[in-house]
Protein backbone atom coordinates (compact mmCIF):
# COMPACT_ATOMS: atom_id res chain seq x y z
CA UNK A 1 0.00 0.00 0.00
CA UNK A 2 3.06 2.19 0.18
CA UNK A 3 2.82 2.76 -3.57
CA UNK A 4 -0.77 3.96 -3.27
CA UNK A 5 0.14 6.36 -0.50
CA UNK A 6 3.04 7.72 -2.53
CA UNK A 7 0.84 8.03 -5.62
CA UNK A 8 -1.75 9.89 -3.56
CA UNK A 9 0.97 12.28 -2.49
CA UNK A 10 1.60 13.08 -6.14
CA UNK A 11 4.43 10.66 -6.89
CA UNK A 12 3.83 9.72 -10.54
CA UNK A 13 6.57 7.10 -10.50
CA UNK A 14 4.67 5.29 -7.78
CA UNK A 15 1.49 5.33 -9.86
CA UNK A 16 3.43 4.05 -12.87
CA UNK A 17 4.67 1.18 -10.71
CA UNK A 18 1.07 0.41 -9.79
CA UNK A 19 0.22 0.36 -13.48
CA UNK A 20 3.09 -2.02 -14.19
CA UNK A 21 1.99 -4.36 -11.42
CA UNK A 22 -1.64 -4.55 -12.50
CA UNK A 23 -1.88 -3.73 -16.20
CA UNK A 24 -1.62 -7.34 -17.34
CA UNK A 25 -4.51 -8.47 -15.12
CA UNK A 26 -6.63 -5.45 -16.12
CA UNK A 27 -5.96 -5.93 -19.82
CA UNK A 28 -6.61 -9.67 -19.70
CA UNK A 29 -9.88 -9.29 -17.83
CA UNK A 30 -11.03 -6.68 -20.36
CA UNK A 31 -9.88 -8.88 -23.22
CA UNK A 32 -11.76 -11.89 -21.89
CA UNK A 33 -14.91 -9.86 -21.30
CA UNK A 34 -14.89 -7.90 -24.56
CA UNK A 35 -13.07 -10.39 -26.80
CA UNK A 36 -11.28 -7.67 -28.67
CA UNK A 37 -7.71 -6.49 -28.07
CA UNK A 38 -8.20 -2.87 -29.09
CA UNK A 39 -11.29 -2.45 -26.95
CA UNK A 40 -9.45 -4.11 -24.07
CA UNK A 41 -6.56 -1.67 -24.46
CA UNK A 42 -8.98 1.27 -24.39
CA UNK A 43 -10.64 -0.11 -21.28
CA UNK A 44 -7.27 -0.69 -19.58
CA UNK A 45 -6.27 2.88 -20.35
CA UNK A 46 -9.55 4.26 -19.05
CA UNK A 47 -9.38 2.05 -15.96
CA UNK A 48 -6.05 3.47 -14.84
CA UNK A 49 -7.10 6.98 -15.72
CA UNK A 50 -10.14 6.68 -13.47
CA UNK A 51 -8.13 5.04 -10.74
CA UNK A 52 -5.69 7.94 -10.92
CA UNK A 53 -8.49 10.49 -10.67
CA UNK A 54 -10.20 8.69 -7.80
CA UNK A 55 -7.24 7.36 -5.85
CA UNK A 56 -8.39 9.34 -2.82
CA UNK A 57 -11.48 7.14 -2.63
CA UNK A 58 -9.54 3.89 -2.50
CA UNK A 59 -9.77 2.25 0.92
CA UNK A 60 -6.15 1.75 1.88
CA UNK A 61 -7.13 -1.22 4.07
CA UNK A 62 -8.15 -3.20 0.98
CA UNK A 63 -6.07 -4.80 -1.77
CA UNK A 64 -5.49 -2.62 -4.79
CA UNK A 65 -5.97 -5.38 -7.37
CA UNK A 66 -9.68 -6.10 -6.67
CA UNK A 67 -10.37 -2.36 -6.70
CA UNK A 68 -8.71 -1.77 -10.05
CA UNK A 69 -10.31 -4.90 -11.51
CA UNK A 70 -13.74 -3.79 -10.30
CA UNK A 71 -13.29 -0.50 -12.19
CA UNK A 72 -12.26 -2.46 -15.29
CA UNK A 73 -15.18 -4.88 -14.97
CA UNK A 74 -17.63 -1.99 -14.60
CA UNK A 75 -16.26 -0.28 -17.67
CA UNK A 76 -16.45 -3.53 -19.64
CA UNK A 77 -20.06 -4.09 -18.57
CA UNK A 78 -20.91 -0.55 -19.56
CA UNK A 79 -19.19 -1.00 -22.89
CA UNK A 80 -21.20 -4.15 -23.52
CA UNK A 81 -24.46 -2.56 -22.40
CA UNK A 82 -24.60 0.78 -24.07
CA UNK A 83 -24.63 2.08 -27.57
CA UNK A 84 -20.96 1.17 -27.63
CA UNK A 85 -21.99 -2.44 -27.99
CA UNK A 86 -23.82 -1.74 -31.23
CA UNK A 87 -21.11 0.55 -32.45
CA UNK A 88 -18.48 -2.05 -31.72
CA UNK A 89 -20.49 -4.68 -33.52
CA UNK A 90 -20.38 -2.48 -36.62
CA UNK A 91 -16.76 -1.68 -36.06
CA UNK A 92 -15.86 -5.35 -35.64
CA UNK A 93 -17.80 -6.21 -38.76
CA UNK A 94 -15.76 -3.63 -40.64
CA UNK A 95 -12.57 -4.97 -39.10
CA UNK A 96 -13.44 -8.49 -40.13
CA UNK A 97 -14.03 -7.33 -43.66
CA UNK A 98 -10.60 -5.72 -43.68
CA UNK A 99 -8.95 -8.73 -42.10
CA UNK A 100 -7.99 -6.69 -39.05
CA UNK A 101 -10.07 -8.52 -36.50
CA UNK A 102 -8.21 -10.06 -33.62
CA UNK A 103 -10.32 -12.27 -31.46
CA UNK A 104 -9.61 -14.59 -28.58
CA UNK A 105 -10.13 -17.41 -31.03
CA UNK A 106 -7.49 -16.02 -33.32
CA UNK A 107 -5.00 -15.49 -30.57
CA UNK A 108 -5.08 -18.75 -28.73
CA UNK A 109 -2.87 -21.52 -29.78
CA UNK A 110 -5.14 -23.80 -31.72
CA UNK A 111 -5.57 -26.31 -29.01
CA UNK A 112 -8.88 -28.01 -29.15
CA UNK A 113 -9.47 -28.30 -25.43
CA UNK A 114 -8.49 -24.68 -24.69
CA UNK A 115 -10.84 -23.51 -27.42
CA UNK A 116 -13.55 -25.76 -26.01
CA UNK A 117 -13.12 -24.12 -22.61
CA UNK A 118 -13.31 -20.59 -24.04
CA UNK A 119 -16.38 -21.47 -26.08
CA UNK A 120 -18.02 -23.15 -23.13
CA UNK A 121 -17.39 -20.19 -20.79
CA UNK A 122 -19.07 -17.88 -23.30
CA UNK A 123 -22.20 -19.96 -23.15
CA UNK A 124 -22.55 -19.21 -19.44
CA UNK A 125 -24.57 -16.32 -18.03
CA UNK A 126 -22.61 -13.07 -17.81
CA UNK A 127 -22.11 -13.13 -14.06
CA UNK A 128 -20.97 -16.76 -14.26
CA UNK A 129 -18.50 -15.89 -16.99
CA UNK A 130 -17.08 -13.12 -14.84
CA UNK A 131 -16.55 -15.35 -11.84
CA UNK A 132 -14.80 -17.98 -13.98
CA UNK A 133 -12.52 -15.36 -15.52
CA UNK A 134 -11.60 -13.90 -12.16
CA UNK A 135 -11.14 -17.14 -10.26
CA UNK A 136 -9.46 -19.35 -12.85
CA UNK A 137 -8.13 -17.16 -15.64
CA UNK A 138 -6.78 -14.43 -13.34
CA UNK A 139 -6.26 -16.69 -10.30
CA UNK A 140 -7.99 -14.41 -7.80
CA UNK A 141 -8.91 -15.88 -4.44
CA UNK A 142 -12.56 -15.97 -3.38
CA UNK A 143 -12.31 -12.86 -1.20
CA UNK A 144 -10.74 -10.76 -3.95
CA UNK A 145 -13.23 -12.02 -6.54
CA UNK A 146 -16.03 -11.07 -4.14
CA UNK A 147 -14.62 -7.54 -3.88
CA UNK A 148 -14.43 -7.18 -7.65
CA UNK A 149 -18.00 -8.39 -8.12
CA UNK A 150 -19.43 -6.57 -5.13
CA UNK A 151 -20.90 -9.70 -3.60
CA UNK A 152 -20.24 -11.71 -0.47
CA UNK A 153 -17.61 -14.49 -0.58
CA UNK A 154 -20.42 -16.99 0.01
CA UNK A 155 -22.13 -15.75 -3.16
CA UNK A 156 -18.89 -16.21 -5.09
CA UNK A 157 -18.68 -19.80 -3.87
CA UNK A 158 -22.28 -20.61 -4.78
CA UNK A 159 -21.93 -18.93 -8.19
CA UNK A 160 -18.70 -20.84 -8.81
CA UNK A 161 -20.38 -24.09 -7.90
CA UNK A 162 -23.23 -23.43 -10.34
CA UNK A 163 -20.91 -22.09 -13.02
CA UNK A 164 -18.63 -25.13 -12.83
CA UNK A 165 -21.54 -27.51 -13.16
CA UNK A 166 -22.85 -25.59 -16.15
CA UNK A 167 -19.36 -25.34 -17.61
CA UNK A 168 -18.97 -29.09 -17.48
CA UNK A 169 -22.24 -29.53 -19.35
CA UNK A 170 -21.17 -26.99 -21.97
CA UNK A 171 -17.73 -28.57 -22.35
CA UNK A 172 -19.32 -31.95 -22.98
CA UNK A 173 -21.48 -30.40 -25.68
CA UNK A 174 -18.51 -28.73 -27.36
CA UNK A 175 -16.37 -31.87 -27.41
Amino acid at each position, binding site marked *: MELVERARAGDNDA*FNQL*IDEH*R*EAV*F*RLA*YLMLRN*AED*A*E*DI*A*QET*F*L*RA*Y*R*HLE*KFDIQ*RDFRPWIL*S*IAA*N*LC*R*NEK*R*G*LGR*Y*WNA*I*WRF*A*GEQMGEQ*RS*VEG*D*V*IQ*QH*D*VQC*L*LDAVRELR*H*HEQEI*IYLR*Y*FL*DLDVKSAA*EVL*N*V*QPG*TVKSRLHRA*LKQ*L*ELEMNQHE
Partner: protein
Amino acid sequence: MNENEIRDLTRRVVYPPTPDITIIPTRPRSTVRQLAPIAIIVFLLLLGLLVVEPVRAAIVDILRIGGIEIHVGETDLSQATPTFVLVGETTLKEAQAAVNFTLKYPEALGLPDVVYQQDKLVVMRWHEPDIALYQFNGEGFYKETPNIEWTEVDGSTIAAWIATPHLLWFDSGDEQEQQQVYLVEGNVLIWEEPFKTYRLETRLSREETIALAESLVEVK
Protein backbone atom coordinates in the same frame (compact mmCIF):
# COMPACT_ATOMS: atom_id res chain seq x y z
CA MET B 1 -13.75 -31.42 -15.01
CA ASN B 2 -12.18 -30.24 -11.76
CA GLU B 3 -10.68 -26.88 -10.81
CA ASN B 4 -7.10 -28.01 -11.46
CA GLU B 5 -7.96 -29.13 -14.97
CA ILE B 6 -9.59 -25.75 -15.68
CA ARG B 7 -6.58 -23.88 -14.32
CA ASP B 8 -4.30 -26.01 -16.45
CA LEU B 9 -6.29 -25.06 -19.55
CA THR B 10 -6.43 -21.37 -18.68
CA ARG B 11 -2.63 -21.28 -18.44
CA ARG B 12 -2.46 -22.39 -22.04
CA VAL B 13 -4.51 -19.47 -23.33
CA VAL B 14 -2.32 -17.12 -25.32
CA TYR B 15 -3.29 -13.47 -24.88
CA PRO B 16 -2.26 -10.54 -27.04
CA PRO B 17 0.76 -8.69 -25.62
CA THR B 18 -0.24 -6.47 -22.72
CA PRO B 19 -0.05 -2.88 -24.01
CA ASP B 20 1.90 -0.12 -22.33
CA ILE B 21 -0.42 2.08 -20.34
CA THR B 22 0.22 5.77 -19.98
CA ILE B 23 -2.09 8.16 -18.24
CA ILE B 24 -3.04 10.55 -21.03
CA PRO B 25 -6.51 12.06 -20.69
CA THR B 26 -7.32 12.04 -24.39
CA ARG B 27 -6.19 9.63 -27.04
CA PRO B 28 -6.19 10.22 -30.77
CA ARG B 29 -8.94 8.23 -32.40
CA SER B 30 -8.16 5.89 -35.25
CA THR B 31 -9.48 6.60 -38.73
CA VAL B 32 -12.00 3.81 -38.39
CA ARG B 33 -13.25 5.25 -35.13
CA GLN B 34 -13.57 8.72 -36.63
CA LEU B 35 -16.23 7.19 -38.85
CA ALA B 36 -18.21 6.23 -35.76
CA PRO B 37 -20.89 8.92 -36.06
CA ILE B 38 -21.72 7.87 -39.63
CA ALA B 39 -21.81 4.20 -38.68
CA ILE B 40 -24.04 4.95 -35.71
CA ILE B 41 -26.48 6.95 -37.85
CA VAL B 42 -26.67 4.12 -40.39
CA PHE B 43 -27.17 1.63 -37.62
CA LEU B 44 -29.89 3.69 -35.94
CA LEU B 45 -31.73 3.92 -39.26
CA LEU B 46 -31.55 0.15 -39.58
CA LEU B 47 -32.65 -0.19 -35.97
CA GLY B 48 -35.61 2.05 -36.68
CA LEU B 49 -36.69 -0.32 -39.43
CA LEU B 50 -36.54 -3.18 -36.98
CA VAL B 51 -38.57 -1.34 -34.36
CA VAL B 52 -41.54 -0.84 -36.67
CA GLU B 53 -41.73 -4.56 -37.32
CA PRO B 54 -44.99 -5.81 -35.78
CA VAL B 55 -43.31 -8.52 -33.74
CA ARG B 56 -40.31 -7.92 -31.54
CA ALA B 57 -38.93 -9.56 -28.46
CA ALA B 58 -40.62 -8.54 -25.21
CA ILE B 59 -37.34 -8.29 -23.33
CA VAL B 60 -34.33 -7.12 -25.28
CA ASP B 61 -31.72 -7.16 -22.53
CA ILE B 62 -31.14 -8.29 -18.98
CA LEU B 63 -28.67 -6.17 -17.04
CA ARG B 64 -27.41 -6.19 -13.50
CA ILE B 65 -26.18 -3.53 -11.12
CA GLY B 66 -25.23 -4.86 -7.72
CA GLY B 67 -28.20 -6.78 -6.39
CA ILE B 68 -30.72 -5.48 -8.93
CA GLU B 69 -31.49 -7.30 -12.15
CA ILE B 70 -32.99 -5.02 -14.78
CA HIS B 71 -35.05 -6.40 -17.63
CA VAL B 72 -35.17 -3.89 -20.46
CA GLY B 73 -37.92 -4.23 -23.02
CA GLU B 74 -41.65 -4.16 -23.47
CA THR B 75 -43.23 -3.44 -20.08
CA ASP B 76 -46.87 -4.06 -19.23
CA LEU B 77 -47.59 -1.59 -16.44
CA SER B 78 -51.22 -2.68 -16.09
CA GLN B 79 -50.25 -5.70 -14.00
CA ALA B 80 -48.62 -3.62 -11.29
CA THR B 81 -49.76 -2.66 -7.82
CA PRO B 82 -49.56 1.14 -7.63
CA THR B 83 -48.44 1.41 -4.02
CA PHE B 84 -45.27 -0.05 -2.58
CA VAL B 85 -45.88 -0.29 1.16
CA LEU B 86 -42.74 -0.13 3.23
CA VAL B 87 -42.75 -2.13 6.44
CA GLY B 88 -40.34 -2.51 9.34
CA GLU B 89 -40.21 1.08 10.58
CA THR B 90 -37.30 1.50 12.92
CA THR B 91 -34.61 3.93 13.99
CA LEU B 92 -31.33 4.68 12.28
CA LYS B 93 -29.47 3.17 15.19
CA GLU B 94 -31.42 -0.07 15.14
CA ALA B 95 -31.22 -0.30 11.35
CA GLN B 96 -27.46 0.15 11.49
CA ALA B 97 -27.16 -2.58 14.10
CA ALA B 98 -29.18 -4.97 11.95
CA VAL B 99 -27.10 -4.82 8.77
CA ASN B 100 -23.46 -5.59 8.01
CA PHE B 101 -22.74 -2.46 5.98
CA THR B 102 -22.33 1.17 6.93
CA LEU B 103 -25.46 3.23 6.37
CA LYS B 104 -25.09 6.46 4.45
CA TYR B 105 -27.39 9.37 3.69
CA PRO B 106 -27.22 12.39 1.35
CA GLU B 107 -25.73 15.16 3.44
CA ALA B 108 -27.76 17.81 1.62
CA LEU B 109 -31.02 16.23 2.80
CA GLY B 110 -30.05 15.77 6.43
CA LEU B 111 -31.10 12.73 8.41
CA PRO B 112 -34.19 10.90 7.07
CA ASP B 113 -37.72 11.45 8.33
CA VAL B 114 -38.44 7.72 8.52
CA VAL B 115 -36.28 4.58 8.39
CA TYR B 116 -37.40 1.06 7.47
CA GLN B 117 -35.36 -2.12 7.78
CA GLN B 118 -36.13 -5.59 6.54
CA ASP B 119 -33.46 -8.28 6.52
CA LYS B 120 -30.51 -6.77 4.58
CA LEU B 121 -32.52 -3.85 3.20
CA VAL B 122 -32.66 -0.38 4.75
CA VAL B 123 -34.88 2.33 3.26
CA MET B 124 -34.58 5.99 4.28
CA ARG B 125 -37.50 8.28 3.44
CA TRP B 126 -37.70 12.04 3.27
CA HIS B 127 -41.13 13.64 2.91
CA GLU B 128 -40.15 17.05 1.57
CA PRO B 129 -38.97 16.58 -1.08
CA ASP B 130 -40.34 13.07 -1.55
CA ILE B 131 -37.19 10.92 -1.73
CA ALA B 132 -36.41 7.32 -0.84
CA LEU B 133 -32.93 5.85 -0.57
CA TYR B 134 -32.67 2.05 -0.57
CA GLN B 135 -29.41 0.45 0.49
CA PHE B 136 -28.97 -3.27 0.69
CA ASN B 137 -26.60 -6.13 0.57
CA GLY B 138 -27.47 -9.18 -1.47
CA GLU B 139 -29.72 -9.86 -4.42
CA GLY B 140 -33.37 -10.40 -5.22
CA PHE B 141 -34.58 -7.07 -6.62
CA TYR B 142 -35.90 -7.04 -10.16
CA LYS B 143 -36.99 -4.22 -12.44
CA GLU B 144 -38.67 -4.23 -15.79
CA THR B 145 -38.43 -1.04 -17.78
CA PRO B 146 -38.87 0.03 -21.39
CA ASN B 147 -35.61 1.93 -21.36
CA ILE B 148 -32.62 2.82 -19.28
CA GLU B 149 -29.86 5.41 -19.44
CA TRP B 150 -26.29 4.86 -18.29
CA THR B 151 -24.56 7.50 -16.25
CA GLU B 152 -21.94 7.81 -13.53
CA VAL B 153 -21.73 8.66 -9.87
CA ASP B 154 -18.53 10.31 -8.67
CA GLY B 155 -17.26 10.30 -12.24
CA SER B 156 -16.31 6.64 -12.18
CA THR B 157 -19.05 4.44 -10.78
CA ILE B 158 -21.41 3.16 -13.45
CA ALA B 159 -25.02 3.95 -12.59
CA ALA B 160 -28.40 3.28 -14.20
CA TRP B 161 -30.96 6.07 -14.53
CA ILE B 162 -34.60 5.12 -15.12
CA ALA B 163 -36.92 8.07 -15.70
CA THR B 164 -39.97 6.26 -17.05
CA PRO B 165 -42.68 4.36 -15.15
CA HIS B 166 -41.48 0.82 -14.62
CA LEU B 167 -42.04 -2.33 -12.60
CA LEU B 168 -40.31 -3.48 -9.44
CA TRP B 169 -40.57 -6.79 -7.67
CA PHE B 170 -38.65 -8.73 -5.09
CA ASP B 171 -37.91 -12.43 -5.15
CA SER B 172 -37.13 -13.80 -1.72
CA GLY B 173 -36.39 -17.23 -3.17
CA ASP B 174 -39.43 -18.68 -1.39
CA GLU B 175 -41.52 -20.35 -4.09
CA GLN B 176 -44.56 -20.41 -1.81
CA GLU B 177 -44.53 -16.63 -1.46
CA GLN B 178 -46.75 -14.74 -3.88
CA GLN B 179 -44.73 -12.30 -5.92
CA GLN B 180 -46.13 -8.78 -5.92
CA VAL B 181 -45.18 -6.47 -8.78
CA TYR B 182 -45.15 -2.76 -8.03
CA LEU B 183 -45.36 0.29 -10.24
CA VAL B 184 -42.59 2.86 -9.82
CA GLU B 185 -43.41 6.30 -11.15
CA GLY B 186 -40.50 8.25 -9.70
CA ASN B 187 -37.08 8.65 -11.24
CA VAL B 188 -34.61 6.06 -10.06
CA LEU B 189 -30.81 6.05 -9.89
CA ILE B 190 -29.09 2.72 -9.17
CA TRP B 191 -25.42 2.23 -8.41
CA GLU B 192 -23.22 0.03 -6.28
CA GLU B 193 -20.16 -0.03 -4.08
CA PRO B 194 -18.43 -3.08 -2.59
CA PHE B 195 -21.02 -5.24 -0.80
CA LYS B 196 -23.78 -2.67 -1.21
CA THR B 197 -26.35 -1.57 -3.79
CA TYR B 198 -28.04 1.83 -3.75
CA ARG B 199 -31.41 2.74 -5.24
CA LEU B 200 -32.36 6.40 -5.01
CA GLU B 201 -35.93 7.28 -5.98
CA THR B 202 -36.77 10.95 -6.47
CA ARG B 203 -38.91 13.39 -8.44
CA LEU B 204 -35.78 15.35 -9.28
CA SER B 205 -33.78 15.66 -12.49
CA ARG B 206 -30.96 13.28 -13.28
CA GLU B 207 -28.31 15.87 -12.41
CA GLU B 208 -29.97 16.71 -9.08
CA THR B 209 -30.33 13.05 -8.20
CA ILE B 210 -26.69 12.32 -9.06
CA ALA B 211 -25.63 15.28 -6.93
CA LEU B 212 -27.51 13.72 -4.01
CA ALA B 213 -25.86 10.35 -4.68
CA GLU B 214 -22.46 12.00 -4.71
CA SER B 215 -23.11 13.67 -1.37
CA LEU B 216 -23.54 10.47 0.65
CA VAL B 217 -21.92 10.52 4.08
CA GLU B 218 -21.84 7.89 6.78
CA VAL B 219 -24.42 7.99 9.54
CA LYS B 220 -22.57 8.88 12.73
